[in-house]
Structures are given as C-alpha cells and as structure tokens.
C-alpha cells in the first residue's frame, strides 16, 4: 500500500493502517534517535515519543512528499528536547552497574548488532566520537539521505552553511575513522 493511502486511512482512524505506518518507519525513527542520543534505551523511549507526537498531529501533517522530512523533524525535536533536559538536569543518582543490565530495554542494542560487522562497528564508533553538530549533519545528509535544501530548512540555516558544514563533517568522520583504525592496528600489534 502506498504512503498516501496509508496516511489517509490513518487520518480516518484505521488502527491497522497506523500499525502498518509504525512498522514501516519504526526502524528509521529508532535509528535516528539512536544516532542522536547514542543509547538504546533512551532511543527507544524517544522513538515512542516521536510516534505519539506524529499520531497526535497526523491530521495536520504534510502530504506524502514531505512526510519523511516531517517525521525526521519531529524525531529530531524530541531528541534535542531530551538532550537539553539531560544537560539541564542530570540523573539525580547514579545507577549501579549491575542494575543497568536489568534496566536495559529488552531488544538487542544496535551497537551489538554491529558486532558481527567490523566495518559497521568502526563507522558507528567514529560517528559516536564526532561533535554533535557534525554528527547531526552526517545523520541527516548521508544516513537519512535528506537533500541540502531539506536540511537547511530543518536546521534553519543558510544552504551554503549546510554545504560547508556537510563537507567538514565528512572530513571529520574520515579522520575519526582513520584514527580508530590506527588505534586498532596499534592494539593488535601490541
């Protein structure tokens, strides 16, 4: 079923259509959230929060052409709210290392999914070491495949800024990757 029909049915209150929509986009939303917060459990909560916001605003949402940008914007806003809250108010108490295992969300951690593929693991680690600004550009531009114009409108910055920032972000990613690779090689030698 194409996206426009799915959206129409969702707006008319079809639960099955909504479930299909959730299943279609949940991996993407969860992936975006994970790249923003770098934590599987927080990413799960944020993805859920994003879907709730999407559901609440579905009737006033855009058409199918801009739907992807719309849901990415909602997810990004949820992630930024979360990061801002976290920065303002860190956890009131430390969680014991043993409790973390029991508190972890019952799905496989994305970083564990990379364990089998060293290339993905390496790129994932390099992404996590990047600055927030550059990582966001990489996530939006090269992972989610948004156009420069879409990113400019999403981030509310000029197109030229997005272009130059995108280039810098890619260079930084390449440098981080090279650094990690050299560290790995050094570790293997030692």
């Amino acid at each position: 079923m194409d996206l426009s029909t799915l959206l129409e049915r969702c707006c008319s209150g079809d639960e099955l259509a909504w479930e299909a929509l959730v299943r279609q986009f949940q991996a993407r939303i969860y992936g975006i959230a994970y790249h923003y917060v770098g934590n599987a459990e927080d990413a799960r909560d944020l993805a859920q929060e994003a879907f709730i916001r999407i559901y609440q605003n579905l009737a006033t949402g855009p058409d199918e052409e801009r739907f992807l940008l719309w849901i990415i914007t909602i997810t990004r806003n949820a992630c930024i709210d979360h990061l801002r809250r976290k920065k303002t108010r860190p956890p009131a108490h430390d969680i014991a290392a043993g409790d973390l295992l029991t508190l972890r969300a019952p799905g496989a951690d994305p970083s564990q999914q990379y364990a089998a593929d060293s290339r993905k693991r390496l790129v994932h680690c390099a992404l996590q070491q990047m600055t927030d600004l550059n990582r966001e550009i990489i996530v939006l531009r090269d992972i989610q495949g948004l156009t420069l114009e879409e990113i400019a409108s999403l981030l509310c910055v000029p197109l030229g800024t997005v272009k130059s920032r995108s280039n810098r972000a890619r260079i930084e990613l390449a440098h981080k990757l090279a650094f990690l690779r050299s560290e790995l090689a050094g570790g293997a030698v030692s």
Partner: protein
Amino acid sequence: MSCSRFIRILADFQQGKLLSEEQMAADAHLAHCPACRRLVEIAQGRIDILPESGRDELTRSILDRTSGPSCPRAESSLWEFAGGELSAGDSQMIALHLDHCSACRAIAGDFDEIQRVLPEIAGFEPDGLFTRDVLCATSGAKIPDSKFVIPDENLSIGSQKSRFGNRIQTAWHRIVQRPCFSLEAAYVGTLVLLVAFSPFLPIRKTVFDRIPAAASQPSTYLLSTWSNTQSPISDGLCKFALALGTRDQAIADSLSRLVTCYERPSGSTLSRRAQRISEWRRREAGILATFLMRLKFW
C-alpha cells in the same frame, strides 16, 4: 654556432621559426654538440632529469609560492569523487592529486568505505514490544510494563511493600526532577531561615540582644544571671552552651552537672550543700566563660 647562441634560439628552433641559414647552422651545431642535443631532448620532454623523489617537493614548493596547497580544494570534492558523481575532467584532476597526496588518498579511501556503510546503518529494528507499546500509547490503552512483568497474584507482602516503596521513590524522583524544584526548595529554605533566625521576631530579639553582652563579659554576666534562677536567659544560654559543648567531653560533663545543680532544690536544711553548690557555680561559671570566650573567637 656557439652553444650560447643555440640556447638563445632554442625556443624558435623548437617551433620551427628559424630562417633557413640559422636552421642549417643550428642543425650543424647539434650534429657535433651532445650537450645541446640533450638540451633539445629535455626541452621536447623526451628526457626527464628531475628525480622521482624531488617532483612532489618541487610541486609543493611551487604551489606554496603561488596558489597555496590544493588539498582543501581536493577534500571538498573527494566525497563526490568517491561516489563517482564528478565530471570526467574533475575526476582526472582529483585522481592526479591523489596519486601524489597520501593524506587525501587515505581520506578518499575512507570516504569510499563510509559511503558503503552509512546507508546500511540508517535504521535499526527495535525490540518486538516496541510496536505494541506505541499502539497502546496512541490508542490510550494502559501499557503493560514490558520490563518487569510480575503477576499480581504472585506478589508477597514483602514485595508489595517494596512496590509501595518503589512507588514513593518514583514519586519523589518525579518531584525532584521537575525543573522548578530548585527554585521551590530555595524559597522554602529561605522562609525557614527567616522564621528561625529573624531578628525581627520578638522572642529571638530578646535572646539575641543579650548574647553579645554575655559573650563580651561572660564571667560577670553569667555570675550575675545565674544567681537569679528565675532568669530564662541563663537556662537558655546554659542549654545552648551544653548543646555546643558536646564536642568537648569535659565541658559537656561540667555543664551537665551545672544544669543538674540548678534543678536541685536548695533551702536552709541544706546549707552545706548550698555552699558547695555556690562553689560549683563559680567554678563551672569559669569553665563556661572560657568556653564562651572560645565561641567568641570562632
């Protein structure tokens, strides 16, 4: 024709612009001058006398003195180069640069790998309960706790108590984690401090007005006030000093004995005891005075 004359006309010689007499003279010179023959071959590019190791250095030094390093320009196109999105001419120039620049070559190699990997990590499938949780949340239904699923009938009293404790703990954390909690706590704390230590309150005013006098001349003040057992300020000071004197066991013991003496009845039948009490009072007053002097210098 001399060698210097030939070098002067070398450019015209290569382009074939010499007159016939000059051309014949140049050919005759080349026939018997191996140095000029080599010069012609170098000028025509048939012989390369620049060593391989020195070429990059020469290029770099020329670029440094002219346009500057070309690496930033190359880096800006490496992503498109790795993705095959550049025009043929640009690709050729980038390839030429990469042949001689190891740093850019490494970045290009990384870009190639990154471009293959990034689309593969665009999405992750969350756990199986995620969709159910989203559907429950959007339909308004109650979401069962997917992390700690414990059947109610199996709960013991102890675990019910712990659940109650957990609920209180959760509620407390929710209160504490509100953004305005710090402001509220500061407000309440300020009110408590004002009520407890405000000099404008009548009771506190009487007590706190007398403390400086007691601290400036403690022995005189204490001896004069302790003779009057009805004076509330002497008892108040005594208890205050007792509370502070718990750090020093000797002072604490002396003060507690002093308070006990105050509480004991005195009369004509206990004249000897009253005398002893009076001595005690003087001695303990000295100790307390010393203690208050310490307090004064804190």
